[in-house]
Each structure stands twice: as C-alpha cells, then as structure tokens.
C-alpha cells in the first residue's frame, strides 16, 4: 500500500430530471503515493465533489477512481478527510476526539492513549487535552482535526480548504506545520484551496480545474527548495513565477463569471 490515487474519465452528475447538474466531466488524473497535490479552481467547479468522491462519501456516475489500484467502495480508514468546518465531535474533548479513530480500530486503551498524546503534542495542543471544541479558536480546532485524522494513520490525507476560515498569519503557521508533517509521515495529500499562494507554497503539483462542470485544465509542477525559512521561499523567483503562472491560468477561468 503506497497511497496512490488513480482517476480516469470520472464523471459526476447530481440530481435528476430538471434538477440534473453535471459537476465533474471526464476528469483523469493520477497521484503518486506520498505526493502533495493541490487543487484550485473557480467556486462551484467541483473540487469538493472530487475530494468527497475520493473519500468514498459520494457515488460516481461514470469512470473509475481507485486507491492503490483498487476501485474505491465507500469510506475507509486508508483515507482521512480534514474539513474546512473541522467536523470535530463537539461532545468529545480534544483528547477524546483524537482517540475516536483508535477506539473504532480497537486499539488497546494504553496504546491508543499514547498515540493520541503523541499527535496532540505534535500539533502543539498539549495542555488542551480536556477542552471541548467550543472552547478552542478556529486554528486550534483545525489542529485537533488534523491530529484526529493523523492519529489513526490513514495513508491519504484529503483536505478541503482546511485553512480557508483562518486569517493570514495563522494560515501561514499551519501551512508550515503541515509541510513538516508531510515530510515526516510520508502521506499522500490532496489539498483543496482558493488561495494560489497557499497551493504553490505547499505542493509538488497544482491541478487547476476548469469552471463548472469541472475537469482538469492544467497541471503545474512546482519544484521549490523548501528547506529554508518561509521568507526565503516566498520571495524566491521560482515561487513568484509559479504563482503567477497558476494565477493567470486560474484567472482565465474565473474572470468572465464573477459579474453578478
């Protein structure tokens, strides 16, 4: 199991009769195990739809989507989703949220506890173990969500605008944390965002989708040296070039449709 994802000729249609909307049209795209891929595209182009199909939450209308070569069949613990609105269980404390996946997997209590604590620490949440989600700020909630997903160790992380509701400085901090995790834990990441800078900063490849019904428009390879501090990366020429490239491609799709 290496966490590769294969999408070929994917088509997704919502509703029936007059309500029928084609959300995704003939999309093919392959993601290698351990790769970090971002997806950008105009609002409503089908990014979330794509992600939830990979997660197994939605049925597909046509084509195939497979993980490690096996067509997907519903949600599975090999994939973990991080939602923009966190989707934490509000009745569980931070610790209990992180423990959830481990409980469901039947991990013995002590081991589960240790694992949970490790990810809580990793996400700088120590000291907040017994807080309920309502007591946390948005940034901390998203860290808990990340810790919860990492704790049961899915091979693939699917992230739907996870930092969309956070403000710039917090976003940047979490982006850097995510890069660290990805470096350490060897996950495949599919990351959806509206923010071109974020996409370029984080990922090895950025897929730009056409507007509704969405399909693959272009894919930009980003080959950044991410070893230095953020300051150096975002002020590098390569970064600016890639950013402008993605931005221009995306702008072609969005420009004509934002008039009221």
């Amino acid at each position: 199991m290496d966490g590769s994802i294969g999408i070929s000729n994917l088509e997704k249609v919502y509703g029936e009769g007059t309500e029928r909307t084609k959300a995704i049209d003939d999309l093919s795209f392959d993601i290698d195990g351990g790769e970090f891929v971002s997806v950008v595209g105009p609002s409503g182009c089908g990014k979330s739809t794509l992600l939830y199909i990979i997660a197994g939450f939605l049925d597909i209308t046509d084509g195939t989507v497979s993980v490690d070569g096996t067509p997907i069949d519903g949600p599975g613990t090999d994939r973990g989703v991080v939602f923009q609105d966190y989707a934490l269980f509000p009745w569980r404390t931070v610790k209990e949220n992180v423990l959830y996946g481990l409980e469901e997997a039947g991990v013995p209590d002590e081991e589960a506890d240790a694992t949970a604590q490790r990810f809580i620490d990793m996400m700088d949440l120590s000291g907040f173990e017994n807080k309920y989600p309502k007591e946390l700020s948005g940034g901390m909630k998203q860290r808990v969500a990340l810790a919860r997903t990492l704790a049961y160790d899915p091979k693939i992380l699917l992230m739907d605008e996870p930092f969309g509701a956070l403000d710039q400085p917090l976003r940047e901090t979490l982006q850097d944390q995510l890069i660290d995790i990805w470096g350490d834990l060897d996950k495949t990441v599919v990351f959806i965002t509206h923010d071109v800078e974020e996409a370029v900063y984080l990922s090895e490849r950025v897929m730009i989708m056409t507007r509704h019904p969405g399909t693959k428009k272009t894919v930009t390879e980003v080959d950044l040296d991410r070893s230095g501090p953020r300051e150096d990366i975002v002020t590098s020429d390569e970064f600016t070039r890639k950013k402008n490239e993605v931005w221009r491609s995306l702008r072609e799709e969005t420009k004509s449709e934002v008039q009221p």
Partner: protein
Amino acid sequence: MDVDVRSLGASSIVDSLKSIYSLVLLLVLWEAVTRMGLIYPYFLPQLSVVIHEFVVLVSTGQMIHAAYLTLMRAFVGLAGAAVAGVAVGILCARNALFEWFFDPLIKIGYPVPVISLVPVFMLWFGIGDVSKIIMVAVGTFWPIAVNARDATRQVEQNLIRSARMMGTGDRRLLWRVILPAASPGIFTGLQIATPIALIITFVFEMVAGGGGLGALEIAGVRGFNSAQTYAVIFAIIAIGLVLDRLLRAARTRLLDWT
C-alpha cells in the same frame, strides 16, 4: 430575557434587590390591602392566612401527597413519551419509510389541543392514574418527537462522514454520533414537554378529580376556601421553579460541551 436566579454573588446582591423590590412591594401591598379590608377576603385572603393555610396543608401531609400524585403522573407519562418520542423522531429522520408514515401524522397531530381529549380519555381509561399518565404521554409525545426528529435531521453531514471515515459502521453510528449530536435538540424537546406534562396533569385533575394538586386547588374553589387555592398555587409556582432550575442545571451538566 433569561430568567436568572442562579447565583447571588456579592456584586449581584444589589442587582437582585433591584429586581426583587417589585415582588416585595406586591407582597406587602397584598397584606396591607387585605388587612384594611379593601378587598373581599374570599377573593383575596390575607397573605398571612394563605401562608398559614400552606403550612397546615403541608404539615397534615395533604399537600405532599397531592404533589406526589401530580408529579408521579406527570413524570411517568413524560418518561413514556420520551422513549417513544425520541425513537420515532430519530427513525423519522433516518428512515424514509418512517418519515413517509409519521411526518403527516406529526404535522396533523402537533397542533391538536390534546387537552380537549380529556373527556375521551375519561371514557377510554377512566379517571384514575392510568388515564392521566397516558394523556400526559400522548400530549408530550409530539414536541419530543418533533424536536428529536429535527435535531437528528440537522446532525451535520460532515460529522457522520468523519465517523465513517474512521471506521464507524451503520449500526454503531446511532450511538456514537447521531444520539450525542442530536442530544441538545432532544433535551430541548424535554424542556418544552415538561410544562406541558404539568398542564395536562393539572387540568385532568381539576376536571376529573382523583387527587393531586389540580384537584386540591379546584377543591378550594368548590369548597369556597380560597386560601387553599392560593396555597396550592404557591406550591405549583415553587414546583415549576424548581423543575425549571433542575432542567437547566441538568442541561449545563450533561451538555456542558454545547
């Protein structure tokens, strides 16, 4: 306006005095006006007379027994309705067949003034405890079912998805996610239903007798002993207040995560 009598911290004593002065004023006025004979005593006995009557009713055990009967009827009925209402509500929200069957019934049943069925229940089940308990159960079923249904419907899709992706199966989903996520709404249903349970019990007791606070209260009017009626109303206010506080306390305790 959240009626709040929770804490009387040092700084809030002034506040509570400010808001309680009108009550004190009213009570003093009551005693004064009745002592001066400005109001015919049968309509409004002296406050002291009512308090005395209250003490007598409590010390002879009449009040305690009546309160026991009333609360027993209200709560046994409520418990039945809670079990049935939550079950039906959740099934309605999660199962298309149940939804198809119960939705129109709930739509029709919810606005029916259940209290109008008192004579029917007297006919069907007599006037004893059973009749009152069933009536309470029927009357409180609707708000409980509706709230449970709506709360379950509003459980966030992404919570369910989160659980599924972490390996929770269909069967366990109910206990692991749906019930806890819907519990605030379910509790709200119980909070709405509790005063309704009391309303039904009181009215039934007043109409059909068989003891209880409603019967004791109406007996005051029937026997021209208005002090007894007032004393029972005092007791009812006290019970209402205590129940309300208890429910709120239970809510903050059980649902402290909301």
